[in-house]
């Protein structure tokens, strides 16, 4: 996924300014029932590699680690609410899955902007670019998942372990 990011999306631009971040796929669909320290470490490593590729100097590292922490808290809360483990996102119905995908992209891109600008007022001014960036990322990941990973008829047995 990171190689795909390196080769493809760095050369891809939406409106000449926004680059979708495929490495987000790893963060979004990493199994949430794995140990917490593993999830945070995966976020750290993924963000670090993305920083090296994009020369962003720590932005993606900070955003990935923060996003993984938020995701950890969210899934633990959901598991407690339902009093049973919540299923993995790739097994969710398409509408729920789409909302999760878009919301996660939005949160991740917002975190990138927050760590970049360090001032909420500047971040609010950048609202539209954040939306477009997260929409581009979410849309491309959605296309890949729907076309290549989720079978059109929702055949559960063909779903990957993610």
């Amino acid at each position, binding site marked *: 996924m990171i190689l795909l990011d390196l080769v493809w999306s760095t050369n891809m631009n939406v409106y000449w300014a926004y680059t979708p971040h495929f490495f987000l796929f790893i963060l979004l669909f990493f199994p949430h029932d794995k140990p917490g*320290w593993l999830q945070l470490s995966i976020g750290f490593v993924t963000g670090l590699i993305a920083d090296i590729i994009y020369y962003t100097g*720590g932005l993606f590292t900070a955003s990935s680690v923060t996003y993984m922490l938020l995701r950890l808290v969210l899934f633990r809360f959901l598991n407690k609410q339902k009093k049973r483990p919540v299923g993995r996102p790739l097994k969710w119905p398409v509408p729920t899955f789409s909302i999760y995908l878009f919301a996660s992209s939005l949160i991740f891109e917002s975190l990138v902007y927050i760590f970049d600008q*360090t001032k909420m007022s500047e971040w609010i001014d950048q609202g539209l670019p954040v939306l477009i960036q997260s929409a581009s990322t979410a849309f491309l990941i959605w296309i890949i998942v729907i076309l290549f990973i989720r079978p059109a008829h929702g055949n559960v047995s063909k779903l990957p372990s993610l």
Partner: protein
Amino acid sequence: MLALVRFFYRTHLIWLYLLYMSIALFMIGNNRQITGFKMHRFWMNTTAGIRQKLNGINQYIHLRKENQKLLQENQRLYNIIYRSEPLDNNIPGGYRFAEAHTVYVGNARSDRFIIIDKGSEDGVKIQAGVINPNGVVGIVSETSSHFSKVLLTNNPQISIDVKLRHKKGYGFTQADHIFHRVLRVVDWPENLKLSEDDTLVTGGLSLIFPPNIPVGRVKTIRYRNNRTEIILQPFVNLNDPGFVYILTHPLKEEMQSLIHEN
């Protein structure tokens, strides 16, 4: 020790997150100029703010020592001023000042006084004048080894000679029996016109107070039954004079012995 280890184990995710975030923020601060500058400025402001608070607390803790130092400095300066300034009546020598604290305030209508924390062992004598930076406080009436009783200016037993600065002509203060926060001035010369807000100072007729120590401000002047009633508002807060200075003059006993002989 075991409890500490258990605490760290239970909160290991938070510590891990903080560790990763520290590394990431360090990378951001080093590699991104604008963000790094903002982070540096935030850090400087935070540490400056914390240092300021700590300094404030430190200064507050040491206030007592600071106050004592200032009192002693004031005492030294008063001594210098009143030794070098020529007195109106050309009495040689000068007043000596010693600092003291008010430890008790007695507010009975007929006996208004304070107790200060200096007594006969500190050289305080009966009929020594007591002032504070605002003006005249009162006169020492009794002493013990370590404390002294000072009758305030609004005590019915006290009367102080007052005058207008740079003018000759004297009046005397008396306690007001109804309004104990003000003083009356009696025997004021008819040829000396007073107006409201004039400042009256000590006349220096006795050697209790040197001349020109502020006593009060003229609050009202009333003309009744062919007499002038002058109401004086003292400058000193007689409910709590705070830090005070005791005045002594080395020649006062000599003068008083002559008065008693006569």
